[in-house]
């Protein structure tokens, strides 16, 4: 909502931003088009190119896209509506299994990819509502533990209801997407990459539109001061529920895509680690700032899945004396922990805080995950 200000900025940059603001959807699509075409070029430059061949980078980007999608979805819940969700992976799992049921030899169904995306989103949203409806009345931290519990329950159900999910064996041989007669293959990651970028771009357009809409304002209002929001006529429960459902459906999308790419789904893939990682992505990226969160997700995923695993090769290639001989593979988890702590200590507001968040940084009372204690309301 800074249209006016940015319009008033005289600099060309300001004018550009004003333009960008007036045609935001177009800008986002353009932005993604640029990113998507630049990334493949960047990774051909050393030292990146020494890590792994380009096709693997592309493949990695497609996987990173899954986490970007997750982070953008969680951002709606945590960043916009200020609800602390620690069980986000549950919805990821639900989306994944939805696709596994819809298109695998296990059920002898072969529903096409695009419809399944929708199905996955809807199913996940439904369960989001199922979880949210009774629990969204709770104060922030109670919600946190309930969601954490839900995040443990869902994989446990997929694990134990083996009659319907093949239990711990997981469902394999899941069909790869076939889009307009074009069959995706495991050998060629490019189609996944393109599809992922398309999904990301569209999702981001939607999320930005929501953020700027009446609903988005309501979310932020609830985050800022739930009581005042209610006293302004916002039905806080339904609004929160919408945020929850929306976040869930995004995770559902991610699940469908990931499963269609991996062609296998098992209950072990959706532990608390996933939820925590995504939360870390949101917080480190800068809560409430969609682009920031997306970047945060990309950075962390790359650190986790590429850099930490390739550190040895990296130092070996550069022939760094001592580091060369350390086996980083076994310390990567430790390094990840250190990275989390360090990044938080250095930039608690995240790498790319939204303008709002930055203002909020030093206000302890403005608590992203907490409803102002109603004692305020007792007043008198």
């Amino acid at each position: 909502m800074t249209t006016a200000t940015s319009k008033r900025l005289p600099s060309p940059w300001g004018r550009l931003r004003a333009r960008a603001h007036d045609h935001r959807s177009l800008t986002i699509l353009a932005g993604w088009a640029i990113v998507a075409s630049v990334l493949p070029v960047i990774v051909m430059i050393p030292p990146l190119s020494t890590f792994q061949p380009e096709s693997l980078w592309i493949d990695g980007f497609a996987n990173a896209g899954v986490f970007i999608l997750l982070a953008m979805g969680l951002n709606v819940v945590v960043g916009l509506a200020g609800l602390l969700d620690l069980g986000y992976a549950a919805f990821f799992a639900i989306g994944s299994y939805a696709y596994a049921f819809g298109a695998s030899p296990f059920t002898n169904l072969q529903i096409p990819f695009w419809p399944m995306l929708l199905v996955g989103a809807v199913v996940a949203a439904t369960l989001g509502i199922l979880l949210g409806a009774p629990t969204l009345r709770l104060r922030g931290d109670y919600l946190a533990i309930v969601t954490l519990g839900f995040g443990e329950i869902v994989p446990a159900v997929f694990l134990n209801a083996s009659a319907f999910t093949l239990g711990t064996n997981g469902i394999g041989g899941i069909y790869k997407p076939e889009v307009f007669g074009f069959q995706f293959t495991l050998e060629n990651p490019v189609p996944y990459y393109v599809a992922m970028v398309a999904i990301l771009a569209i999702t981001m357009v939607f999320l930005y539109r929501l953020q700027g809409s009446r609903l988005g304002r309501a979310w932020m209002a609830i985050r800022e001061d739930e009581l005042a929001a209610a006293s302004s006529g916002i039905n806080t429960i339904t609004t929160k529920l919408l945020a929850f459902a929306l976040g869930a459906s995004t995770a559902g999308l991610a699940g469908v895509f990931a499963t269609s790419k991996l062609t296998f789904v098992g209950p072990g893939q959706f532990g608390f680690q996933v939820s925590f990682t995504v939360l870390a992505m949101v917080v480190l990226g800068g809560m409430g700032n969609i682009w920031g969160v997306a970047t945060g997700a990309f950075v962390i995923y790359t650190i986790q899945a590429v850099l930490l695993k390739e550190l040895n090769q990296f130092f070996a290639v550069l022939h760094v004396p001592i580091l060369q001989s350390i086996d980083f593979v076994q310390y990567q988890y430790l390094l990840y922990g250190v990275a989390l702590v360090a990044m938080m200590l250095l930039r608690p507001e995240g790498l790319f805080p939204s303008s709002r968040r930055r203002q909020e940084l030093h206000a302890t009372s403005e608590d992203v995950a907490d409803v102002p204690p109603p004692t305020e309301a007792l007043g008198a």
Partner: protein
Amino acid sequence: MKYGKLGALGAGALLVFSACSGTTATAAPGTSTAPGGSSAVAAGAWCVGGTVKIGTELPMSGGETANGAPTANGVKLAIKQQNAKGGVAGCKLDINVQDDALNGVHDPQTGAKNMQTLVADAAVMGVVGPFNSGVAKAEIPISNGAGLLMCSPANTNNGVTQPPEGDTYRKTNPTKISYIRTASPDSIQGPSAADYLYKDLGKTSVYIIDDTETFGVGVGDTFQAEFKKLGGNVVKRDSAPKSTTDYTPLFTAAAALNPQGVYLAGTTPTGMGLALKQGRTVSGLETVPFVGPDGVADLGPGGTQGATITIAGAASHDVYGTVGSAHDLADNTFTAAYTTEFGGAPGAYSAAAYACAQIIIASLDKASATATDLASAREGVRANAVNSANSFTTVLGSLNFDKYGDNVHPFISFYKVDMTLAGGKGDWTFVKQESFSDPNAQ
């Protein structure tokens, strides 16, 4: 460096190289060998750059280091010894270590990415791994498409190889399978344990506890089916996830049903060692036999005191275990070599990984005769390894593989813990072994 020196004594010219190949084999996974190595012995034209690699695809970090690291060491040892012998047809061997653990837990997504990486590394002739069946199900389609050999030292889940499920992973090249495994599938190990408990030990009722992992549930189910078929009575079947710390309530509940035996369907890293230790303390189960698969009878072929006895300690008496390989053929020098190299007893799957490496090396040796480039060598390795006509002499004994990649002549060796051994600490002693016919014969 020990091996490097030995190799040098064998072939003086190799001293320099075997030394440096020794370092690359043990340290810095994924490194390409330092240049110049190939000059030691003229390698065939197919051996581009004088070095080819064996990949490992195992969980190496976080909670699963205990599974992956010792297993990978088996491969490192094989490579080092082979290089000490001058490599394969003058072509040096190196290792490309991939870690499929994400946030410390094995992750099929990461596994798939690693398999793509290994496929993309033209120098990789074959892959040892994965450790978890779930990961295998995500990887086989990739390796099958690319024609890169995978040899799993640990997978036992029937579905990985056997139809109908197995076929869904081989859709790209249904005939050119790319996956073999050294361990006997659950469909053999579970029932054989059931037979042993029912016939040899004469126990007619049993309590089964599994660890909810693919392996544990697999052997648990097959054990249960066989034991019932024999007319035995399964008094209770529980599943306790590896996060369980307190098994006492489980065994207390089971003890009320007076089982004559207990089957620990799982591995010691996933809690079965703890289960044994705590189960013994429950009144009623102090002396009943506890039987477990090779995840519990975790002994190197030489027979070393595995983690189970270390954890269970005095509770290890009357404990029996099955191991999915032959005992008498086992190469007893392996354990010694491993211990000298890594300063510790081998893990439960180190020997199997070593065997996988031996198979890949042997196949490469065969293939190198006709290979023209790395691609044809890789294909040669795959073709030779999966060809059921070829039988490989390995640390696990002689192995050859059927049309689905399962061992044609699976062996099950039976062990029991003898508390008088190892200075009263107790140790596994060989009881007997049985050979089975090809699980996929008809």
